């Protein structure tokens, strides 16, 4: 591991301890939702709209008494999926706003009979809105402004303009969405594959008009999520709960792959325009960015995805005069939602391909252009955030260039079928702006006979939450890692630590747990846990998020400290073009990233490697064919994600630069790695001579793009 600034010496943190659920996962003992069964359990199924827009006239069926049937009239509370806006019904009553919108729910003891059941939805179709540029409805718009654009452009020697486009992307967790609802104690317990137990808890309370204690949500082992199980589980949990309460029996709903791809959320497609003024020496003088995101039929999380996109839209560069205008709009397509990176991959794709085009226009080395403009400690971002000592844009850039021998390859490969390109990027950890203050997350630590038990709502979905949290606690308490247990993120037992999203689980929740452990250690004094328990009885220490001193933010003006900290990355893509098929084959991807400090280096590396591969898919392969508002390739046969044959060697390099307010210096790592590969690959394709500006960069699109001018 290389270091910008060395991290303090530690005993457990920074070591590759065995992951908590590792043995269960490699022996087949780990239990996912589809592995669970309850006595008397029924299977549930969702009847969905077959048109993108219209009005429901009539729902007809002749199902026998063995079926449990639920429609919008069975909802005892309010018929919407609680998130930000109250616009998305749990079950459509009259209006259809997208293909595959849920209308009716069925349950039956026999799965085959359930699948054979026929329901006819008669509806009057209306003309759908499918083009976001012609949408009549805006979910959210915002502007970030700094300095004076006119004087910035007046000072420029050259103005470079461009439009960049990114497509939908399916999260494609290998375990589809699924839940089981069990009616009990006059309420309901939901077990499921999900990221945010308290999001589901709140949605169910509103849908079912139930108080806190009647609703319980228990995450099962979760087989991948990537944002795709952030908000959607509130929908499917609502469906299972409605069926279970009506049947008074447990109900399991597990989507098959096609239903999961057709009906659940995806990454927002984006159209992004840049107009940039630059001095002949390479200094940026003005940046004007316009972002349009397709939100799909309902608001879901579009407003916050948009805001993260906008904050990252100018890239990790100094520019005294900048304006970012961003808009997310409605179309009659299935709602888009959270996906690892949350808007930042789209806006930084545009920023980094545009940066490459500025270098081309200036005839300047792309590394030099980035060196001149990269943010340094003490610089201000577009929102006016003054950056601290943990600013590593230059360090990651220089290490990536050195390690890959970038400049020599760039010269040597020009005019061949090999190309090399890079991207420089950053990613804010935690919720945007005042988000963390509003969440006011809590976590707790319970003293056990031999050590401590973590009580947090953060879920394990592969990233190593349990392990990493236990390391932070063990290090702080000064006890062996094995003596820290991690309780289930069961809403009946753990406080609301906020959602497991936004690269916040280590930096934000981990920090709260560190503070719990510090207090527990002080209370214990010289007593062992057993002695303490005997003398004083049970001990649970609960702490709440505290905003780091000096942080400020305005939701009205979008000015201030947008995030507690940023991770920094530089990716170098080396690609080869097949002269016959025109396919781009990545040969090697080098990812140099700084996120404070790795609590568990193998797990952290796993985040870089996995995020990089997922972004390679987005850049080259993953093409959602949306036809008449419906995903036409909703299966793995023709929605292609990277296999071993498509994934190049990935060289993940971690630089240390501890953040003062993160646990043992750690910032967030979950999303940073997915921001960089797509622009690095497209810049490598530009090096091959193609005028690539949109992804996925399929052979067909590259032929259409033609050569660079």
């Amino acid at each position: 591991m290389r270091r910008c600034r060395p991290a303090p010496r530690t005993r457990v943190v920074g070591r590759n301890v065995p992951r908590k659920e590792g043995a269960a996962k490699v022996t087949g003992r780990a239990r996912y939702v589809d592995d669970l069964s309850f006595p008397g359990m029924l299977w549930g199924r969702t009847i969905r709209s077959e048109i993108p827009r219209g009005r429901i006239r009539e729902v007809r069926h002749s199902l026998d008494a063995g079926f449990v049937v639920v429609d919008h009239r069975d909802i005892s509370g309010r018929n919407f999926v609680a998130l930000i806006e109250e616009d998305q019904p749990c079950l459509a009553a009259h209006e259809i706003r997208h293909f595959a919108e849920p209308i009716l729910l069925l349950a039956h003891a026999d799965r085959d009979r359930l699948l054979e059941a026929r329901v006819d939805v008669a509806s009057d179709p209306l003309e759908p809105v499918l083009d976001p540029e012609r949408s009549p409805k805006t979910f959210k718009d915002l502007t970030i402004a700094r300095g004076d654009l006119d004087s910035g452009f007046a000072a420029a020697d050259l103005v470079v303009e461009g439009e960049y486009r990114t497509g939908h992307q399916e999260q494609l967790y290998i375990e589809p969405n699924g839940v089981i609802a069990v009616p009990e104690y006059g309420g309901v317990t939901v077990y499921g594959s999900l990221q945010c137990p308290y999001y589901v808890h709140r949605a169910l309370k509103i849908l079912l008009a139930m108080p806190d204690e009647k609703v319980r949500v228990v995450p099962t082992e979760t087989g991948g999520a990537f944002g795709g199980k952030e908000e959607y589980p509130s929908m499917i949990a609502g469906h299972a709960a409605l069926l279970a309460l009506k049947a008074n029996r447990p109900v399991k709903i597990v989507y098959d792959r096609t239903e999961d791809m057709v009906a659940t959320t995806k990454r927002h497609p984006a159209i992004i325009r840049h107009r940039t003024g630059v001095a002949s020496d390479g200094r940026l003088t003005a940046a004007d960015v316009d972002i349009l995101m397709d939100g799909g039929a309902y608001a879901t999380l579009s407003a916050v995805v948009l805001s993260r996109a906008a904050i990252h839209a100018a890239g990790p560069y100094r520019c005294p005069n900048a304006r970012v205008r961003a808009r997310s709009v409605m179309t009659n397509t299935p709602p888009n939602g959270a996906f690892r990176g949350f808007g930042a991959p789209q806006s930084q794709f545009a920023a980094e391909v545009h940066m490459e085009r500025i270098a081309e226009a200036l005839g300047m080395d792309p590394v030099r252009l980035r060196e001149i403009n990269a943010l340094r400690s003490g610089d201000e971002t577009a929102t006016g955030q003054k950056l601290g000592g943990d600013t590593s844009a230059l360090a990651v850039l220089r290490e990536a260039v050195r390690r890959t021998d970038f400049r020599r390859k760039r010269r040597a490969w020009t005019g061949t079928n090999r190309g090399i390109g890079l991207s420089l990027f950053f990613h804010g950890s935690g919720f945007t702006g005042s988000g963390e203050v509003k969440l006011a997350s809590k976590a707790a630590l319970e003293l056990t006979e031999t050590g401590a038990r973590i009580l947090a709502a953060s879920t394990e979905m592969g990233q190593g939450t349990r392990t990493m949290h236990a390391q932070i606690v063990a290090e702080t308490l000064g006890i062996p890692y094995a003596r820290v247990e991690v309780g289930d993120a069961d809403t009946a037992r753990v406080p609301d630590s906020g959602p497991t999203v936004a690269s916040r689980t280590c930096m934000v929740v981990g920090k709260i747990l560190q503070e719990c452990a510090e207090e527990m250690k002080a209370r214990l004094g010289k007593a062992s846990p057993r002695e303490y328990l005997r003398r004083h009885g049970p001990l649970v220490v609960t702490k709440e998020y505290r905003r780091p001193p000096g942080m400020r933010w305005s939701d009205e003006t979008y000015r201030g400290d947008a995030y507690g900290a940023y991770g920094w990355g530089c990716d170098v893509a080396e690609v080869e073009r097949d002269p016959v098929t025109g396919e781009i084959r990545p040969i090697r991807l080098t990812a140099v990233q700084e996120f404070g400090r790795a609590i568990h280096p193998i797990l952290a590396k796993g985040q870089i490697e996995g995020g990089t591969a997922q972004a390679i898919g987005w850049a080259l392969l993953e093409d959602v064919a949306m036809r008449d508002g419906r995903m036409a390739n909703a299966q793995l046969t023709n929605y292609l994600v990277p296999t071993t044959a498509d994934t190049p060697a990935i060289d993940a390099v971690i630089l240390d630069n501890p953040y003062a307010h993160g646990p043992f210096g750690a910032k967030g790592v979950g999303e940073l790695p997915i921001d960089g590969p797509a622009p690095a690959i497209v810049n490598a394709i530009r090096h091959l001579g193609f005028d690539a500006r949109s992804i996925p960069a399929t052979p067909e699109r590259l032929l259409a793009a033609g050569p660079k001018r």
Partner: protein
Amino acid sequence: MRLTVNGRRRDVTAPPMKRLLDVLREECGLPGTKEGCGEGECGACTVLLDGAPVVSCLVPFAQARGARVTTIEGLRGRSALQEAFVTEGGAQCGICTPGMILAAAALPKKATMEEIRFGLAGNLCRCTGYTGIYRAIRKAAPGRKSLESSVLGARSSVRERGARRRKQ
């Protein structure tokens, strides 16, 4: 119908066209085999059929008559490969892991990097970028023998495996 599952002979009654995946999960009580797509593309349901990896979602039960089936539960204890999947980050969310480990167990003894990539090309992993999986397989390579001897009922076909490819 008779078959050998993880070294144990069993008589299982199920419709002949029922997917082997469902027979294993529902009739044999072995939920370690996972369903990811149901169309033979993701490999999460990979098991060894007479020592060769197959996607059990595309194998009708009738085709497994008299065969030796090895699931993740049949890897007794913690083989070197399983151990390495934990320590090298070969498993993250874990849903592809049972199938991935069985596909890896069926690789040739001293597989080259290209053979490993080819042998695993039918198993999708969305978490690791495959890098941790390669690390795990290479780390376990010296101990591969111990893995093979722990694959119950697949022993006799160890030699054939190198030459055989995924069935479809």
